[in-house]
């Protein structure tokens, strides 16, 4: 597997999979927060 980036100080190679895992976790958090906002907006009584 091709190394994508190097960790500063340690010089350790991290792979695409690890970066994509972080991106998926952060993306899902953001998507669910947006979903909560949209649900609240759709049920707005104001």
């Amino acid at each position: 597997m091709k190394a994508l980036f190097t960790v500063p100080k340690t010089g350790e190679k991290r792979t695409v999979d690890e970066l994509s895992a972080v991106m998926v976790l952060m993306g899902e958090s953001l998507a669910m927060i947006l979903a909560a906002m949209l649900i609240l907006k759709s049920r707005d009584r104001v």
Partner: protein
Amino acid sequence: MARHRLGLGWVFRGDDAPLTGPLFMLVITSLWLGATSASGEIVGERAIYDRERMVNLKIPSYIFSKTAIHSILGVCQSIGLLALLHLLLGFKGSFAVMLAVSLLSNLTGIALGLAISALAKTKRMADTLVPLCIIPMIIFGGTLLPIGKMPKEVWWAANLVPSRMAFDMVVREENSQRAKERKTVPLATYSQPAAGEKAPPATPVPPK
């Protein structure tokens, strides 16, 4: 050792202990704690929320304030949980990396809990929805059945659930540290095999 006399440390003892279960438990517990703590927030104060909305409360401000408060709580929960597991089980992986994964899982759980809380009409309904959302994360997480052994039709689901991604990261971290020590058995990664590669072994391979 003293930690072996205590519950989990006694069950999962030795350098070749099958720590995949406890690592998965770390991820699922972080998700579950985040979702449970946030699921009652909006639905529990719907009347207050409606009144505040009439005096110009913005939805993004409200949601981000809830996320911020629960994230602070999540940091404490993750540090406590990980410190306890490190102490009892003697993980080889870096505490900082595992903490980062645990925090990310907790944040995903908080976001899921807030979405459930916004969707539910009663607190009871929110409490019921949390396990219903967490159970698929356990099924597709890669511990009950390795990803390589799942039918290809459900790989998309396994790649979508946050537990699989977080679990894969903690196992990789644990294995990288075990490989440096050269005296412990690496844990199975349970990763989806890349094109042209063989599926990883379902059980750890003993050293020669």
